[in-house]
């Protein structure tokens, strides 16, 4: 600001001084001309008075007389003889101002009288009052300077107020106002800025209130929350999370610096690569155990970590599991006893009674199957929590499935084809994958309706990131609107639950398959056979990155 002020001041001063100096030289010139004119008049007057008498003139001036040819006839100092004076400046113009032999500025005036010229030379001196102009000049410049200083001061004082005001605003002090307005345009600007500051202040207050409310809200949430930016720094977290992770979490630090739990760090590492991850961590306290569920969501590269206490849910679900496993276990023994006696009964009876006994037997078998499937589901949930993944060769598992199902397929006259290419490996739980393939192939055989040329074909497609397993058959196929439903628990396309043919099943098979594949972070979908009537199940398994 000061710089601008001084710069403006100096430049204005320079402009004014220059114009004053220019004016001075102009005036000086004019004055000189006037003076010369006056001198010439004086000399002429004296010439008239003396009537050309050289003796009188010689008393005051140096004179030279020359004739019409320019030849000097008289010179008071006896100089300039032999020089032609006819073409000199003073002769043609009447006068001239130039330096003489002694280098003194001299005014020459030439007058013609009769047939000769008289040249009078007079020392020329500037009138002293011309030089006093310089004092005026200095005075003018000083005065100008003062005026400019006054002008700049009045212009810049309000601007400096405005600048101080903007500095305050920049610091975040929205309460700052301009107290000195100045005049006209600047007054308008200053007042507008004040209004602006008022509006900003109001908004700021609102924002602060809202932020405060939000922080309070987040701090008092019953769940733990942390926000991690794309560089891994914790932007925000709440105290509950600190209790849950059992570490002092400091904001504005890297998550791996403050969260002292390798599992959660690993979880966040993973979620930087993927969309969202879930992790259950049991924490033991003095008497009880608490289970926290840590979920992360990747939102445009930023991570939101949410931790919640799921002890109650977990306890309930464990209770449920125990109930189911207890019930199924308790059911199994009486059922197998009933089955045994029914088989004995079946051998002993005949006719219409045999038909009834047969139906009893079939339904007991179905019940048995449902129970074993329920046990399987429980087992999968257990495996999800406790089993660890190993490297498996998919080809071997599929070969085992085909071997185990070959007799069943032969009975229905269906070919099992495995188009083996190269060995495909994946990290997984063998039991679950075996069951998944087994179930789908078994379904393919079970529901097959062709008497001839029936087949179930298995292909493996080994991609860079995923492993796709296609299980295709040319059976009756599944209608498009049922293709999602078949994975639901206890869902059957044919609603007739009392069916007693050999196709009876629990309706749990495919839902178990879906769960099993989900544990491998893959998916299973049902499509139609592209080449003929039939269905095609596609199992997609992602290859583990590490």
């Amino acid at each position, binding site marked *: 600001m000061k710089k601008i002020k001084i710069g403006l001041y100096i430049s204005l001063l320079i402009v004014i001084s220059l114009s004053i100096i220019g004016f001075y030289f102009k005036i000086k010139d004019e004055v000189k001309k006037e003076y010369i004119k006056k001198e010439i008049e004086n000399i002429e007057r004296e010439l008239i008075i003396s009537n050309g008498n050289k003796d009188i003139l010689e008393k005051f001036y140096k004179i030279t007389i020359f004739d019409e040819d320019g030849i000097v006839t008289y010179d008071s100092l006896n100089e300039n003889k032999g020089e032609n004076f006819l073409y000199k400046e003073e002769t043609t113009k009447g006068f001239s101002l130039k330096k003489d032999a002694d280098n003194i500025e001299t005014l020459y005036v030439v007058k013609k009288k009769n047939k000769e010229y008289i040249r009078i030379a007079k020392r020329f001196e500037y009138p002293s009052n011309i030089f006093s102009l310089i004092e005026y000049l200095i005075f003018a410049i000083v005065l100008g300077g003062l005026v400019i200083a006054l002008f700049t001061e009045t212009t810049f004082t309000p601007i400096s107020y405005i600048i101080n005001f903007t500095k305050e605003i920049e610091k975040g002090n929205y309460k700052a106002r301009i107290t000195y307005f100045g005049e006209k345009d600047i007054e308008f600007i200053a007042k507008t800025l004040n209004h602006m500051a008022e509006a900003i202040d109001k908004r700021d207050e609102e924002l602060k209130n809202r932020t405060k409310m939000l922080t309070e809200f987040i701090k008092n949430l019953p769940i733990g929350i942390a926000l991690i930016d794309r560089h891994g720094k914790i932007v925000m977290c709440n105290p509950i999370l600190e209790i849950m992770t059992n570490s002092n979490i400091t904001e504005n630090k*890297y998550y*791996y*610096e403050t969260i*002292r*739990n*390798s599992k959660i760090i690993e979880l966040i*590492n993973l979620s930087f690569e993927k969309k969202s991850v879930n992790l259950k961590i049991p924490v033991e306290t003095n008497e009880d155990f608490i289970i926290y569920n840590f979920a992360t969501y990747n939102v445009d590269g930023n991570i939101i970590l949410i931790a919640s206490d799921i002890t109650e849910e977990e306890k309930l679900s464990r209770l449920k599991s125990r109930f189911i496993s207890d019930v199924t276990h308790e059911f199994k023994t009486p059922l197998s006893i009933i089955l045994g006696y029914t088989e004995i009964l079946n051998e002993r009876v005949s006719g219409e009674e045999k038909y009834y006994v047969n139906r009893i037997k079939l339904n007991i078998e179905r019940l048995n199957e449902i129970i074993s499937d329920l046990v399987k589901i429980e087992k999968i949930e257990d495996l999800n929590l406790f089993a660890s993944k190993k490297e498996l060769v998919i080809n071997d598992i599929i070969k085992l499935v085909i071997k185990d199902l070959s007799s069943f397929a032969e009975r229905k006259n269906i070919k099992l084809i495995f188009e083996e290419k190269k060995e495909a490996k994946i990290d997984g739980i063998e039991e679950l994958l075996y069951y998944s393939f087994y179930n789908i192939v078994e379904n393919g055989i079970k529901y097959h309706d062709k008497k001839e040329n029936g087949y179930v074909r298995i292909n493996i497609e080994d991609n860079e990131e995923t492993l796709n397993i296609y299980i295709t058959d040319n059976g009756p196929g599944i209608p498009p609107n049922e293709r999602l439903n078949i994975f639901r628990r206890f869902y059957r396309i044919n609603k007739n639950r009392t069916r007693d043919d050999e196709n009876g099943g629990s309706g749990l098979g495919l839902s178990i398959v879906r769960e099993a594949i989900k544990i491998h972070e893959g998916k299973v979908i049902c499509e139609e056979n592209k080449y003929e009537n039939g269905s095609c199940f596609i199992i997609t398994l992602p290859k583990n990155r590490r």
Partner: protein
Amino acid sequence: MKKIHLDEIIEGLRKNLIQMATIIKESLDYSIKSFFEGNKNLAETVIKNDSIADSMENKLDEEALAIFALQQPIAIDLRFVVMVLKINNDLERIGDLAVNISERTIDLIDNKYYNYYDQLINFAEINYISKVCRDMVDLSIDALINKDVKKAREVIKKDLIVDSYNKSIILKCISEIKNNPESTEFFINIITISKSLERIADHTTNISEDIIYMVEGENIKHSEKKFE
């Protein structure tokens, strides 16, 4: 190829080092806890999780060497990468010692030596030494994260306490063995655990010295200065 700044690579290395330190700290915590509670499951978890620490060590070594080869770090970066290599080694050793403690614990449980465990009430030292050890590991990790020389020096000072505790435990065990020779195996296990803890303290001291070297550029190993 995407150009990555050296700072980012160094930060990545630092992240993995801290993660390694966290894993090691957890396994030490679990092993000490399993010993005091006689929890075989926990002890087995420690042994199983050691493979994670091992793979982490290899990964860190590779990364650090890659930085040497590809980036040619200088000044503080160079000291940092050298420090990572050294600390990595120490951390891995601490992990192994934690596994050692867990193995001893399993041995104690399997052979039903925990009957003698009641006698440990007289052994307040084993409680103290494990506490000091955990504190030292915590402090040295804090020092590592915050480049806090003060905390690192604190760790070095604590090493003396651990040494004295260890000595007194060994002396007590010897006298106990003399009194009832049938419990020899139990007390030998205790001595082994105590020695493991003492070794852990030594390794944390090494880590702290490396941290001081990295921050201040001054090597205080094997000098009288280190207890200042």
